[in-house]
C-alpha cells in the first residue's frame, strides 16, 4: 500500500487568547496584567487520506475544521502532534509543496476585484510558473467544466456570487494541485450553483486523481461527493468512516412515510407519529421492527403509497454531535 497523501497524528492547536472584563477599569488593568486563556481549537486529531480520496470534513461551527485545514495547508503552525502533506511539513511552506496544493475558502477571495478573472489567472500562471501549454490545456478544461466562457472577460466585481465562486475555484486549480482543501466552497450559493460546483469537484477528482478534503454545512455536498466522512467536535475526532456506516451506527430508527389520503387515522400503535401532511403520515420506528410494522400497516390500512427511508443525514449528524457533547 502506498503512503498516505495526508497524514495527521495527534494534531493539536491551542490558541492563547487574552480576555478581560468590559469597562474602562478592566481595560486599564489589562495594560498591567493580561489574563490569558488557552483554547484548544484542535485537540489531538489523527487520520490519513490516501491518494484520490474525497473526504467530507464535518462539524458544527467552532469545531476546529478551518483550523485543521489551515494547519494542513501551512498557514498555521501546530501546537503539537505531527502533520505531513505529500511528504512535506506544511508550515514550512516550501515552494515545491505550495505548487501542489490549494486552499479554497468560500468566504474569501483571491481574484483581483477590478479586472477580468482571466487577468488574475495569467498572474497565477506566472506565480506558479505553469508552462504555457499546460496552462492553456487546464484553462480550456476548467472553462468547459465550469462553463466560464462568458465570465472570464468581465471585471470580477460585475460577477454574481456564484459566478465569482466558479472563477475563484478555477483560479485555485490552474496549477493542477494534487491536494485540494475546500472550506465551505458552496456557502451562500443557490441550489443549482451548488450542484454545478459539486459535479465539477467530482469530475476534477476523477480526471486528475486529486485528493480532496472539504468542509461544508450542506449535507447534499457531502452525500454527492464523499464516501468517507470525518466528523470533529470541539477539536476532537468523533467519527471517521464511510457515510453509510455513520447512518447505520448512529441511527436506531427508520422513517416510514405512509400515504392514506387523510390524517384522520390514529397510528400510534405502529410507531412514533412525527407528522401528518396532506394525508401522508411520517412514522419513526426502531430499525429492527421496520419490516414487521410495514407489513402490519399494509394489512390493516387502506395504504395508497408507502416509503421506508433512513432519516435525513442532517439528523444523523446532529445526533453524532449530541453524543459527542455528552
Amino acid at each position: 500500500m502506498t503512503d498516505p497523501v495526508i497524514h495527521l497524528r495527534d494534531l493539536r492547536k491551542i490558541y492563547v487568547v487574552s480576555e478581560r472584563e468590559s469597562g474602562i477599569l478592566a481595560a486599564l488593568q489589562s495594560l498591567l496584567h493580561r489574563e490569558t486563556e488557552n483554547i484548544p481549537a484542535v485537540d489531538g486529531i489523527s487520520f490519513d487520506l490516501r491518494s484520490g480520496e474525497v473526504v467530507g470534513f464535518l462539524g458544527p461551527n467552532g469545531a476546529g475544521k478551518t483550523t485543521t485545514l489551515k494547519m494542513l495547508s501551512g498557514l498555521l503552525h501546530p501546537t503539537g502532534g505531527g502533520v505531513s502533506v505529500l511528504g512535506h511539513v506544511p508550515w514550512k511552506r516550501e515552494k515545491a509543496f505550495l505548487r501542489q496544493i490549494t486552499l479554497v475558502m468560500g468566504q474569501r477571495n483571491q481574484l483581483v476585484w477590478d479586472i477580468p478573472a482571466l487577468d488574475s489567472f495569467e498572474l497565477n500562471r506566472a506565480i506558479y510558473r505553469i508552462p504555457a501549454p499546460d496552462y492553456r490545456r487546464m484553462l480550456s478544461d476548467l472553462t468547459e467544466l465550469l462553463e466560464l466562457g462568458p465570465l472570464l472577460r468581465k471585471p470580477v466585481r460585475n460577477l454574481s456570487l456564484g459566478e465569482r465562486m466558479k472563477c475563484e475555484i478555477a483560479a485555485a486549480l490552474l496549477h493542477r494541485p494534487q491536494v485540494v482543501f475546500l472550506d465551505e466552497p458552496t456557502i451562500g450559493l443557490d441550489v443549482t450553483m451548488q450542484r454545478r460546483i459539486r459535479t465539477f469537484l467530482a469530475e476534477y477528482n476523477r480526471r486528475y486523481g486529486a485528493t480532496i478534503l472539504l468542509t461544508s454545512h450542506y449535507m447534499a455536498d457531502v452525500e454527492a461527493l464523499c464516501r468517507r466522512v470525518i466528523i470533529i467536535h470541539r477539536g476532537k475526532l468523533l467519527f471517521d468512516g464511510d457515510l453509510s456506516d455513520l447512518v447505520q451506527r448512529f441511527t436506531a430508527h427508520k422513517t416510514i412515510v405512509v400515504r392514506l389520503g387523510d390524517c384522520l387515522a390514529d397510528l400510534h400503535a405502529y410507531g412514533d407519529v412525527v407528522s401528518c401532511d396532506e394525508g401522508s403520515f411520517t412514522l419513526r420506528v426502531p430499525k429492527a421492527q421496520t419490516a414487521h410494522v410495514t407489513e402490519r400497516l399494509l394489512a390493516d390500512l387502506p395504504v395508497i403509497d408507502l416509503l421506508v427511508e433512513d432519516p435525513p443525514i442532517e439528523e444523523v449528524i446532529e445526533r453524532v454531535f449530541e453524543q459527542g457533547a455528552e
Partner: protein
Amino acid sequence: MNGLRDLYTQQFKTTFASMLQYRASLAIWMIGHVLEPLVYLIVWSTVSVSSGGSVGTYTTRDFAAYFLVMMLVNHVTYTWIMYEYEYRVREGGLSFALLRPAHPIHADIADNVSSKLITLPFMLLIAFVLALIFRPTIAFAPWAVAAFLPAVLLAFLLRFLIEWTLALTAFWTTRVGAVNQTYFVAMLFLSGQMAPLSLFPLPVRIAAAVLPFQWMVSFPVQLFLGQLTPIQAMEGIAAQILWVGIAFVLLRIVWRAGVRVYSAVGA
C-alpha cells in the same frame, strides 16, 4: 530568474489594468503629491522674500528648485504599503499571499513601480508648468545628473524596504496608525520634505546624519541640484547601499518573526 521576470510582467499588467479603473483616486494622490511641496515652496518663498531674498544659503529661486525636484523624488520613492498591511492581515488577503510559491514583496514592488509608470509623465508635466511659474535656478552638472539616477533608485529601494518592514507591525498590533504617524513626522523633518536639511538647527542635522531618512529624499535632490561634490556624491551612494543592506536584513528578520506570529495566532 525567467520566472521572476514573468511574474513582474504579469503583475505590471494586473496593476496597470486595476489602476486605470481608479483614475480618480490616482489623480487625487497626485494632487496631494503636488500640493504638499507646493505649500512648503510658497511658505519658504514668502519667508525668503520678506527676509531680503534668501534664507541661509537658499535664495527664493533656490527654494523653487529644491521643492520641485523634491516633489518628483518624493513621488518616485513613496509607497502606500503601510496603509495596506493592516487590512491585509485583518481581512485574510495575506493568507492567499502566503500560500503562493512566491514572496509577496515581489507583487508589491511590481505594483508600486507600475503605478509610478502611469503617474510619472503627469508629474513631470506638472513640474514643468510649475517651473515656468516659479523660475527655479538649477546648476546642472552632467555627472551629477548621471549619478542622480542610481541615487534615486537606491532611495526608492531603501524607502520601500523600510516602509514594507514597518508595515509588518500589523502582525503584532491592530493599531498601526500610531506607528505610521511617528514615522511620517520623522520623515517630514529628517528626510528634507519640509525644508532643506541645511536650514535646520544642529541637533536635527545630527539626527538626520545618523538616521536613514535623508537618503530616501534629501540626498538625491541635493545631488540633482548640484549642491554636492563628487566625493560627497560617492559617499552618499555608499551610505545608501549600506542602509539598503541593513534594511534588507531587518526586513528578513521582521518578516520571519511576523509570519511566525501570524501562523501562531490564527490567520
